[in-house]
């Protein structure tokens, strides 16, 4: 039997990799992938806890998150393509017009 905290560690590590990727990489597509990683890190811990507490609501929430992430991916990629067409780049630092 795999103990609960292994799963939680796994979820935490996946989430941390996502955070690191989001902060460290400058390519917007990679940053976008990192967001997906963070979501899935959370999903792992939700499923693990749901099983541990014998409560299905956690798993139901995961389905919702996956559905939302799919929608987000569709819209997000569309925006990224639009940005690329306009600017010929996907470098995050180049998109810093909104500064004070």
């Amino acid at each position: 039997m795999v103990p609960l905290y292994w799963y939680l560690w796994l979820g935490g590590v996946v989430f941390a990799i996502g955070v690191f990727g989001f902060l460290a990489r400058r390519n917007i597509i990679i940053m976008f992938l990192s967001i997906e990683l963070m979501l899935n890190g959370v999903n792992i811990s939700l499923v693990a806890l749901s099983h541990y507490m014998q409560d299905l609501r956690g798993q139901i929430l995961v389905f919702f998150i996956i559905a939302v992430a799919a929608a987000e991916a569709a819209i997000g990629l569309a925006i990224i393509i639009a940005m690329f067409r306009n600017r010929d780049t996907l470098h995050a630092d180049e998109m810093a017009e909104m500064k004070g």
Partner: protein
Amino acid sequence: MQYYLLIPLLPLGAFVLNIMLGRRVIRRQAHWPSTLAVAGSLVVTVMVLLDVMSGRTLNEDLYVWIVSGNFKVSVGFMIDQLTAVMLVVVTSVSFLVHVYSIGYMQDDPGYYRFYAYLSLFTFSMLMLVTANNFLQLYFGWEAVGLCSYLLIGFWYEKRSASDAGKKAFIVNRFGDFGFGLGVIMVFLTFGTLDYVSVFDGAGGVAAQTINILGADVNLITLIALLLFCGAVGKSAQVPLHVWLPDAMEGPTPVSALIHAATMVTAGVFMVARLNPIFSLSPVAMDVVAVVGAVTALFAATIALVQNDIKRVIAYSTISQLGYMFIACGVGAFGAGIFHLYTHAFFKALLFLCAGSVMHAMGGEVDMQKMGGLKRYMPLTYWTMLIASLSISGIPPLAGFFSKDEILWVAFNGGGVGRVVWALGTLAAVLTAFYSFRLIYLTFHGEFRGTEEQRHHLHESPAVMTVPLAVLCVGAVAAGWIGIPPIISSVFGVEDANWFAEFLKPVVGHPEIEAPHSTEALVMGFSVAVAAAGIAVAWVFYIKNREIPAVLARRCGILYRLLFNKYYVDEIYNATVVRPAMLIARYVLVGLSDGVIIEGVVNGVPALINRFGARLRRLQSGLLQSYAAVMALGLFLLMAVVVMVLK
């Protein structure tokens, strides 16, 4: 008797109408509302006068104006003999000035404005004389000051006119400061501002003193002197007379109105109205009499050498106002009001004649450039001659009776009376001299102006000459209601001084126990010196015209002193005006405005700006730096939660 309310309200209505519709709608017809309104006031005044003569006087509060603690002021009116006389003077002279202005102001672009102000002026003066409490008096007092400012500076595009308006207003502030303090003292002493209550209580506090800076001052004397400060300003007495000659910058009908009916008579009226207060303080009475006498002589000497026709008359007004204060100061308030009343006629006449002359001369005011106008404008000449005879005190014209009464009561006034009488008589000689100097320089001899002016010479239109004729009747006959017994007994009438009898219930009348022979002597003396003054003027300006120039050269210092009006303006400039300007420039504008206010106003935005410049660096626009801050924040928050909640 409620219809008396129409007297002030009609001119007020005309003012509102003219000021609101004058520019667009009424325009050249602006004289109609104002003139009709003042005519209406005149008619109502006559009705009120008849009522008062039949013994019906009135004092009522109409409306509670202010209530605050024990401070209560009403809007109320007092119609008695004194008010009735003032109403007659104000409305009749004002009416004639309104009519005259139709001709005089004909082509002025500010026609409607002129009539609006005239109406407001008349309204203010009527409010002043009908008030039944100090605050309403003060309201009228200040409103009159405002109107004088507006009308003296009527031609405000002209620098000197707008300066003169400001000067009149500011000089009056000095007097009104004292007047305001006086009103406050009245309230502190009596707890009310109602005339009747104050007069009733005045006797009770006559002996009270008040400690000011370690000196005990009689309370009533203090109040009377403070109130008199206001009169000194408004009635242009020394040392606050400087505004009045400059007020000649205004249109001539305004000068007539200010000098004869409104404004300057306010001071004399106020002293007469408050006679129960003044009578209680011998010191204040002496001050009033001496200030009056000094002013009468002082202004008369200046008038001797002025060349501006209107300024001569202006100084003569100051001088005649001095006479009125002499009368008040020796306790003969009725005589003062009598002179005010006769003076209104001949002074308005003098001014309107001067206006007529200026009208013919194309605005020229220098008498040295006139001369010989008698031929061109006979009506103006004759009316002005009569006015001059009247002001000189030649019997049986109006000025004779009133001036004689004043000199006679002063002669018997006791205390400072004889001194004041001597000064007054001396001033009477000078009055006769300068009045006829004006006549001889203007109307006699040969014309000294330009050819162009000579062609333009003409008698004024009827709308201007008819008021002259009407006023002329007043200048002749106005005095006949105050004939002293010594003269009337010659005609078999024992008591013909109806005017004094009429005013007696309000202002009293000093009983003079003196032999008739003395009175005849004093009277004869003043007439003789007046005649002498005229004779000297004739010698100087008709017979032997080199004398004035020679005299001016011989007594160079004296001549320059008089010609420059004793340098009073220069002294004020050096002691008051310049320091005030310096304080304004360096302390108020330089320090307070320039450093303190500017510092705050500019400093606060500068601080915010600098702070903002730092703060906005946070807003870098870099997505990932925001995310880093967010992650850091989240981490810190979680650390706190874990550490605190364990």
